[in-house]
C-alpha cells in the first residue's frame, strides 16, 4: 500500500484545467502559493507536510502559462518531482495512472494555495474506511481543494473522479485558501498571533519577534511584537515594524519608515520616512487593504524591487522552467516520466 500526492500550483482545482483568475494589474504575478510567507512559501510547507505524513512520492504540477512566474522550488525531500504541464486535467489523470502503475494505491490531490492543519493520515484512513473512489475534504464554509483518490480508478475522467457525490471528510482544524493578497495578511496575522500552527522561519529572539538568518535590525529600529523579519532583510535606523507585520527575505526598510499591519513581500525596498499601513507591498506595487486599491509607484526612491536578488532568482527560474517545459513536451510525446532537475538543499526552519 503506497501513498502519493499531487500538488497543483496556479490552477483552480474546483474546475481543474482552468488557471486561477488573474487581475488586470495584479499586485503579485506569481501564484500566491509560491509567495514566501513568514520565510517559506505555501508550496514548500505543503510539500513538507506530505513528507512528514510519510507520503512516498509527491508530484507538483505547474500549468505551462504560469511556469515563468513560479520561482524555483528546491527541497531536500528526494521523492518530489516538479512538472510543467500544458493541460492540467490530462496531466493529473496521467499522474494518477503513473502512481497506480508504480504501486501507489492512494493519492492526495491538493491545491497548493490551500492551507489546512488537518491530520492528513486521518483523512486517508477515513477515505479507506469509506470505500469510495474519492473523498473530498470540506470545512464549515465550503468543499476544499483536497481529495484522496483511488489511483486504480484513474481511467475515469478526472471530473467524474473528483465530482460531487464522493465521500466527504469534515475538517474542524484551521483552513485558509489563498485567493488574494488579503488572504496572505490574514494568514500572517493568524500565524503570528498563534491562531494556527504555522510558525515563521528563523528564531523567536524576543517574545513574538521572529528574526531569520542574516537579518539586520538597527539598534534604533523598533520592532513591536508580534512581527517577522525575514532572511537577509535590513531594517534601518528609526524604523517601526508593528502590528503583525512581516518583512520577507531580502527586503530593506529605510530610515524612519513605519510598517504597520502590513506585509512586505520578498526583495522589496521601502524608502525613507514612509507610513505603510494595512497594506501588502511587492516591489514597486502597493495594495491598500482598507481601500482595496493597488498602486504602482514609479518613483524608485519610494518603493522598488531589490533588483539584483530578484533578477538572479528570475533568471534561474527561466532556465529551470524552460528546461522543464521542453522536457514536458518531449515526455508527453513519448509518454515517459519527467525527471526533475537535481534539487538543491532545502533547509527546514522552525516548523
Amino acid at each position, binding site marked *: 500500500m503506497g501513498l502519493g500526492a499531487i500538488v497543483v500550483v496556479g490552477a483552480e482545482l474546483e474546475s481543474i484545467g482552468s488557471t486561477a483568475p488573474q487581475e488586470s494589474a495584479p499586485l503579485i504575478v506569481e501564484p500566491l502559493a509560491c509567495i514566501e510567507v513568514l520565510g517559506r512559501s505555501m508550496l514548500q510547507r505543503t510539500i513538507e507536510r506530505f513528507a512528514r505524513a510519510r507520503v512516498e512520492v509527491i508530484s507538483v504540477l505547474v500549468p505551462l502559462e504560469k511556469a515563468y512566474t513560479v520561482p524555483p522550488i528546491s527541497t531536500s525531500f528526494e521523492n518530489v518531482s516538479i512538472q510543467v504541464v500544458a493541460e492540467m486535467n490530462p496531466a493529473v489523470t496521467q499522474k494518477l495512472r503513473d502512481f497506480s502503475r508504480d504501486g501507489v494505491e492512494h493519492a492526495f490531490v491538493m491545491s497548493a494555495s490551500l492551507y489546512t492543519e488537518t491530520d492528513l493520515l486521518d483523512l486517508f484512513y477515513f477515505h479507506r474506511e469509506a470505500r469510495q473512489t474519492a473523498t473530498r475534504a470540506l470545512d464549515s464554509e465550503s468543499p476544499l481543494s483536497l481529495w484522496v483518490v483511488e489511483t486504480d480508478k484513474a481511467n475515469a475522467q478526472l471530473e467524474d473522479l473528483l465530482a460531487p457525490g464522493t465521500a466527504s471528510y469534515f475538517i474542524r482544524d484551521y483552513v485558509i485558501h489563498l485567493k488574494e493578497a488579503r488572504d496572505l495578511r490574514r494568514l500572517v496575522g493568524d500565524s503570528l498571533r498563534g491562531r494556527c500552527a504555522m510558525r515563521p522561519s528563523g*528564531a523567536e529572539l*524576543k517574545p513574538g519577534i521572529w528574526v531569520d*538568518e*542574516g537579518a*539586520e535590525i538597527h539598534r534604533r529600529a523598533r520592532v513591536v511584537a508580534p512581527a517577522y523579519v525575514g532572511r537577509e532583510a535590513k531594517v534601518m535606523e528609526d524604523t517601526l515594524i508593528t*502590528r503583525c507585520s512581516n518583512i520577507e527575505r531580502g527586503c530593506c526598510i529605510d530610515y524612519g519608515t513605519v510598517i504597520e499591519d502590513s506585509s512586505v513581500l520578498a526583495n522589496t525596498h521601502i524608502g525613507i520616512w514612509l507610513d505603510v499601513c494595512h497594506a501588502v507591498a511587492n516591489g514597486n506595487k502597493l495594495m491598500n487593504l482598507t481601500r482595496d486599491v493597488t498602486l504602482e509607484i514609479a518613483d524608485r526612491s519610494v518603493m522598488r524591487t531589490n533588483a539584483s536578488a530578484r533578477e538572479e532568482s528570475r533568471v534561474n527560474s527561466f532556465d529551470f522552467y524552460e528546461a522543464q517545459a521542453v522536457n514536458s513536451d518531449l515526455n508527453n510525446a513519448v509518454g515517459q516520466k519527467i525527471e526533475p532537475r537535481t534539487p538543491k538543499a532545502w533547509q527546514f526552519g522552525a516548523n
Partner: protein
Amino acid sequence: MYSRGPVIVMELPETLNHAEGEKFISELQPLLEVHRPRIVLDCSQIQHMDSAGIETLLYCMQEAMKRDGDLKLAAVSPASATIMELMRVDRIFEVYETAEQAARSFQAVPTHEVPQDLPWYSSGFRLAELKIAS
C-alpha cells in the same frame, strides 16, 4: 512599585502631565539604567494624560531601548488609548490588558534558547553584524 523576577512593574500616577512626568522619570531612572531593563508601566490609575505624559512614555521607552531593554504598557484606559491613538503612538507600544500579562510576555521565550548576555540584534543570534549607517 513591585518586581516580578527581572521584570519591573511600575504604576503611573493619576495625572500624567509635565510635572508628574518629571517626578515619575526621576523615580524610574535608576531602574532604567541597568543592562536590558524590562519595564511594565501599569496605566490603570491614570485619570488624565496630556502630550507631556505621552512624551514621558516615549522617553522611558527610548531609555529602555538604548540599553537593549523594552517597555510595555498595561491596563490602558479607553481615554488614554484614544489620546495615544490620536497622537499615533499606540502602535509603538505593546499593550496588555493586565500588568501580569505584560510581565509574563517578557518571559514567553524559554531562556535557554536566547543568550541573555547578548543584545538581541547581534551576530550572537546568527544575525549578520550590524551595519551602522553613517
